[in-house]
């Protein structure tokens, strides 16, 4: 199944072999090429190169040609201010600056940057025939705000007729733009209308529904698919959006995915979203991106869902965060691992393993998915199994299969994030790599030496001289002190004469003078050790 087929099936709410993945790469493709957003969005050649680069890196099922909601506005005479890392912003609204609504003409396919974007779409179409190409158009309400500014909210009361005329014009622009994109080979028309999140369902029904419904109908008659993109706090409008007869609704993290799923299923349409753009994709780690993707996939199930970011990807989104998602989309096994890790819910579930590894034996933990089912896991377990006998009982190994909950808690407590991993005394040593025998032995030996050193440093001892008044005791005490002095060790000598205490050592007064040696070892300081850790110490005492 090609990506294009997968996206199309998902749009029609049919079961697919795996979730379709559509990263909304906009100016982020500029970052992939090392050029500014401005340079990127103004060049046909760079758009083709950047999107192709994203296709190569992220192996998507679908991708937008250009994510820039100012293309139509610019062609209609809005002044733009460009930025290094953002799409441009509209800074002058023509209808507020002397242009009359009647002066506007529907942009033709060559106006402004429309021509270069369409040419880029054609090239991308021929270079990537198997990917669903998304043509992005600015929705009528957002385009109206570009043209008129926030005065539109005043005019909704003051001059309803004018607002309707403006929106009807913007809809005509949408219809023309969608036709251009479909002719250039796009499979999906994504109508992006984020500004609708600013109004309630009553106003939506009055000012948006009639126009977008007509637009989606026109897209349908051209045999293309339609998606309604919204972002922001738009939950109140999802139900009325779903009634506009689009094929798909795409949302961001401001709306719970399960809510959108239920609304869309009710209307028999598909939906997409809602990977978190800033906190996860931009600022998070690859594992966070995977967890977020898995949470979306689990909520969505196996049909009618497109995995996508909530909106245009930030310019500086780390590639690794997106490739991490690509991995779990394409690789069932990696998805399982990430899914297990994703089960980790809260910090309360973590064990405090600060004390782990203070037992006499060295403990080698192997964190696996399941060594019987996962080949790399099995090799790793075998590698450890082979070397431990060489340490003659000083080294103990255990496998933790994260399909079991307690193993998962153990894994997260040790901050392990990859499978399989070898930890030695609670420290991550080998990650996703089966160490050669010598290397593994060296690592374990290193830990043994370290422990030995620590033990010498940490242990303190007392020597008790049990005395019931025998004349030999003084000489005995003297000898002890001499020995201690000559060795230069810091050991306390204590004389015990209380017969009850002497008996508590299991020694009868008739057996005195006697010497008892007690060694102390600091096992824990200022914290509550976990039962697993205490058990290890107790084993040493037996």
């Amino acid at each position: 199944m090609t990506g294009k087929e997968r996206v199309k099936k998902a749009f029609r709410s049919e079961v697919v072999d795996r979730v379709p993945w559509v990263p909304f790469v906009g100016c982020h493709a500029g970052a992939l090429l090392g050029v500014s957003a401005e340079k990127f969005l103004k060049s046909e050649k760079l758009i083709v190169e950047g999107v192709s680069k994203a296709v190569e890196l992220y192996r998507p099922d679908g991708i937008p040609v250009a994510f820039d909601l100012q293309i139509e506005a610019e062609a209609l005479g809005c002044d733009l201010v460009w930025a290094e890392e953002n799409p441009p912003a509209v800074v002058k609204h023509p209808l507020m600056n002397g242009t009359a609504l009647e002066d506007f003409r529907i942009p033709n396919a060559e106006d402004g940057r429309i021509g270069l974007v369409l040419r880029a779409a054609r090239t991308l179409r021929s270079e990537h025939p198997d990917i669903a190409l998304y043509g992005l158009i600015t929705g009528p309400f957002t385009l109206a705000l570009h043209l008129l500014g926030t005065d539109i909210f005043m005019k909704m009361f003051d001059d309803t007729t004018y607002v309707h005329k403006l929106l009807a014009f913007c809809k005509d622009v949408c219809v023309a733009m969608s036709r251009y994109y479909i002719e250039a080979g796009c499979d999906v028309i994504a109508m992006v209308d984020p500004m609708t999140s600013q109004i309630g369902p009553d106003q939506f029904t009055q000012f948006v529904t009639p126009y977008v419904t007509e637009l989606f109908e026109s897209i349908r008659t051209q045999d293309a698919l339609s998606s309604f993109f919204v972002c922001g706090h738009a939950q109140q409008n999802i139900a009325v959006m779903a009634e506009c007869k689009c094929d798909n609704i795409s949302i961001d993290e401001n709306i719970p995915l399960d809510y959108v799923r239920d609304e869309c299923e009710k209307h028999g349409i598909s939906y997409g979203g809602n990977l978190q753009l800033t906190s996860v994709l931009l600022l998070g780690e690859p594992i966070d991106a995977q967890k977020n993707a898995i949470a979306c996939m689990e909520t969505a199930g196996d049909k009618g869902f497109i995995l996508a970011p909530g909106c245009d990807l930030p310019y500086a989104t780390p590639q690794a965060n997106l490739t991490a998602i690509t991995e779990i989309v394409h690789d069932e096994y990696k998805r399982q691992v990430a899914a297990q890790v994703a089960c980790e819910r809260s910090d309360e579930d973590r064990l405090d393993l600060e004390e782990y590894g203070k037992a006499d034996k060295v403990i080698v933990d192997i964190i696996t998915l399941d060594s019987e089912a996962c080949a790399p896991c099995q090799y790793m377990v075998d590698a450890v199994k082979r070397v431990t006998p060489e340490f003659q009982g000083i080294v103990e190994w255990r496998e933790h299969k994260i399909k079991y909950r307690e193993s998962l808690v153990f894994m997260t407590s040790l901050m392990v994030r990859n499978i399989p991993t070898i930890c030695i005394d609670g420290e991550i040593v080998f990650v996703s790599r089966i160490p050669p025998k010598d290397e593994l032995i060296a690592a374990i030996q290193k830990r043994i030496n370290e422990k030995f050193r620590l033990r010498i440093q940490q242990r303190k001892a007392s020597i008790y001289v049990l005395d019931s008044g025998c004349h030999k005791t003084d000489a005995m005490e003297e000898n002890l002190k001499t020995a201690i002095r000559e060795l230069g060790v810091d050991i306390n000598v204590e004389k015990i004469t209380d017969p009850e205490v002497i008996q508590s050592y299991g020694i009868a007064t008739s057996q005195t003078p006697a010497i008892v040696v007690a060694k102390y070892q600091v096992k824990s300081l200022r914290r509550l050790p976990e039962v697993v850790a205490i058990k290890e110490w107790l084993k040493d005492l037996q």
Partner: protein
Amino acid sequence: MNTIDVYILTGFVGAGKTTALNHLLQTEPLASANPALIINEFGKIGVDGALVQKQDLKRYDINKGSIFCICTKTDFLKALTEIAESKCHQSLLIEATGIAETVDIESFLDAPKLKEIYQVKANLCLVDAANFTRIAAFLKPAKTQVQYADALIVNKCDLVSESECYTLAKILENLNPNAPRTQTTNGKIDTDFLADIRHNIHNDKTLEQPPEDIIAVSISTEKPFNHEAFYRTLDDLKENLLRLKGNVNFNDGVKFVELAGTTITETDPSEELTKQNAAPTAFTAIAWKIDTEALKSTLLACSS
């Protein structure tokens, strides 16, 4: 660790935010706390900036036309991080666009690492007395900005009648009963008023019921309205109706009716407006404490 005190200014375009901002910058506690400035206005780069008097201020414009609130988040976090890292500001003033959700801005400040540095001192919402009820029916954030404010500054009271001002006070009281309110005619905020503001005051008293919504309905019909019955209905709805504007096709001719506060005017409609309207009756009413359907059917009941 040095913390930075944050003052947030919200309100729709025309509510007097820039005047208030200039005023705040010149008064304590901000004047001596080397404030940084974040301006997030819709499609207005540089415009407000030119009006901001103290030119040596460190300023960050967050724009993108505010189209994607989430992308704005990225820029916000970037600016907040830069301001924190520069270590030379003890205060921060944020002028938010009229279409921003206050909760979003506060959540940006609550991000890991930033929340230890930034402390919101006050979230002030400027309310345009002349236009609030007109906007609030259509623009969601106009209401939520009031709801989440620590204090409300009602500007331009001189432009409206006393009764309108009174109704507005009732609406604001209903939306946010905890926030202290003050009136101003020029965006200047009394220092004593500022000193008493506490953050998150809207949590003080839990509302027993959600605030009354401000709604708008558009009526468009071919059927003529009974002149007398229409005005009787307007009078019956006087507790609810905030505004009404448009053409009404009375049995004795089409009239342009406008209601603002308690004043009703009836004039001959402009040809332009009559030509544009598909139906002879086309007006919009804004009301509160009544639901859309009830308002619609009550108004339509005067037509036959």
